[in-house]
């Protein structure tokens, strides 16, 4: 183990090169539905047990499945209403299990990125060949089903190895959602190629808000609006990124939909917001800002 994987350099949040999103937007806004499959009887990873109770943990297993049977469809309807395309954090095996969901997302021109094969299979203790295998499986399976070459990664259940970022760059991924050090994209230090960190969120992520902060739905709606206001203000100085990560098994309950809808209504009704996908943000950043930002980081290294 190491004290720091040095995946990025320290870069103060002031006097950075000014980012302007398309049409002068201050905030690039994206929504990331995690469309996940949790197995009832997965093999055990020595570092993490997928279920708190002896298998079958029927209550939690069915709680997760609620997202696919029920919650997803409510979430999608609200996103349609506000013309928000999803960037899907996908348990890739869901392509086989629930092709109906995949088709609806393809029809809406939503983006797919990989969230591993199942959310009950963790990367901890994988050797290099195994980690390569899940990346190759992800690329091929999504490509075959949707025609999209995935360019983003959120490690399954946020389980990583020391080599994850290097492998992502080698497989020509553009962005990782696994790093939470900033509200702007930035270069990740990788052995070869280029990779950026894409601001995702473990703060206004519905799972964190509902299961860790134990917030009420109304408070969740307010948190989203407050975060947006702050990033919008700061975005005038240099463009920021705001992501709302969702899980249909959490946000998709009837008593939670109204607050989420109000928050989406609030954000999408503002001027100067680029409502987009993670892929489009990454491509725009590579085209316009990667080199400038990388040079600024190098110039400011050590102060």
């Amino acid at each position, binding site marked *: 183990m190491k004290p720091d994987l040095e995946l990025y350099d320290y870069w103060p949040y002031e006097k950075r090169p000014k980012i302007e999103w398309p049409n002068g937007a201050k905030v690039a806004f994206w929504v990331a539905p995690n469309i996940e499959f949790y197995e009832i009887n997965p093999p055990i990873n020595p570092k993490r047990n997928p279920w708190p109770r002896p298998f*079958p943990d029927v209550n939690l297993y069915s709680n997760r499945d609620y997202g696919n049977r029920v919650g997803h469809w409510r979430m999608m309807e609200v996103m349609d209403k506000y013309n928000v395309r999803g960037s899907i954090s996908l348990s890739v095996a869901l392509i086989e299990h629930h092709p109906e969901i995949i088709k609806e997302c393809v029809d809406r021109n939503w983006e797919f990125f990989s969230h591993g094969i199942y959310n009950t299979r963790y990367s901890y203790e994988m050797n290099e060949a195994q980690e390569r295998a899940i990346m190759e499986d992800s690329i091929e399976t999504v490509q075959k089903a949707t025609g999209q070459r995935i360019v983003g990664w959120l490690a399954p259940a946020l389980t990583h190895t020391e080599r994850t970022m290097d492998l992502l760059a080698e497989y020509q991924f553009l962005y990782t959602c696994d790093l939470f050090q900033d509200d702007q994209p930035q270069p990740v230090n990788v052995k070869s190629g280029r990779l950026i960190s894409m601001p995702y969120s473990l703060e206004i992520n519905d799972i964190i808000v509902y299961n860790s902060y*134990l917030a009420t739905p109304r408070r969740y709606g307010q948190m989203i609006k407050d975060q947006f206001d702050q990033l919008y203000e700061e975005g005038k100085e240099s463009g920021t990124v705001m992501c709302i990560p969702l899980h249909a098994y959490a946000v998709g309950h009837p008593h939670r939909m109204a607050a989420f809808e109000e928050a989406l209504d609030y954000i999408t009704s503002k001027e100067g917001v680029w409502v987009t996908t993670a892929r489009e943000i990454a491509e725009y950043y590579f085209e316009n800002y990667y080199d400038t930002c990388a040079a600024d980081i190098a110039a400011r290294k050590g102060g």
Partner: protein
Amino acid sequence: MTLPKEYLEYPMRRYGMDQDIYEWSILFKRPKAKWPNGARVALWITTDLEFFPLDHPTKPFKAPGGMVTPYPDLRHFTTRDYGNRVGIQRIWKVLDKHKIKSSVAMNSKVAERYPYLVKKINERGDEIIAMGVDQGKLHYGGMDDAVEAAQVKESVETLRKLSGQPVAGWLSPAKSESWKTLKHVKANGIDYVCDWVADDMPFELNAPDGAGKLWAMPHSSEISDRKIIIDNKHSEDEFIEQIKDQFTGLYKESAKHGGRIMSIALTPYVTGLHYRIKYLDQALGWLMKQKHVWPATGAEILAAFKSQ
């Protein structure tokens, strides 16, 4: 250390579910359900009557509400018992006021210890759902099959004998099942279980070993006083707000997609407290003022659903 090669093998990666207990189905693609008298939302109130033994086992895990301090934990034992003595009466008064029939999920041990409660439930016309023997006797993967068979039988037979009710519903203590629970409850004539929260409407389950079919009823783990007030520590006002939002969402949806079920799971030692009961009164008062609400028991709702 590295992972065995099985860790990257996926034998159940296939269309549908990764088990044969129930089939993959999208709620919004199913035929519309219809409720009696043009109702759009079936209101299913359930109350738990539980016995938490002082000497309960802590393996494989402790049921929510189980003892906390070293033995004898009189503090939690009596707090839970308060619900069975005082809290439940307050809840029943509120239900009477709003003319709501409900289901009562009951450990058979409670029926044996407090025959008064069984008599009262029968007088009210409420439904008894079997909830195992007591909150110390869990059902869980890896348990001895004969022990589980005996637990299920004891629970269902005792409740039937003491109440005279058919007892068609089952709720496992702590909503925990083994791989074989469905087989055992089916063998004892149970028609529906409340442990599977994958849906807002009933769906069919296959009991293992070809033991036949039964139903999953959408008993809420979300709109539950234990979840919202105890686990999430939300205020009583916030509990009501979520009940209203739940109803509003389901009601709206029912216009296009047919009848819905709204489940509210109550715990007498939580909602039946002196400072909390008036909020239940407010919530149910509001709900019963809405249009097209049908308060019913689980068995009644399922019967209406199955008749279509």
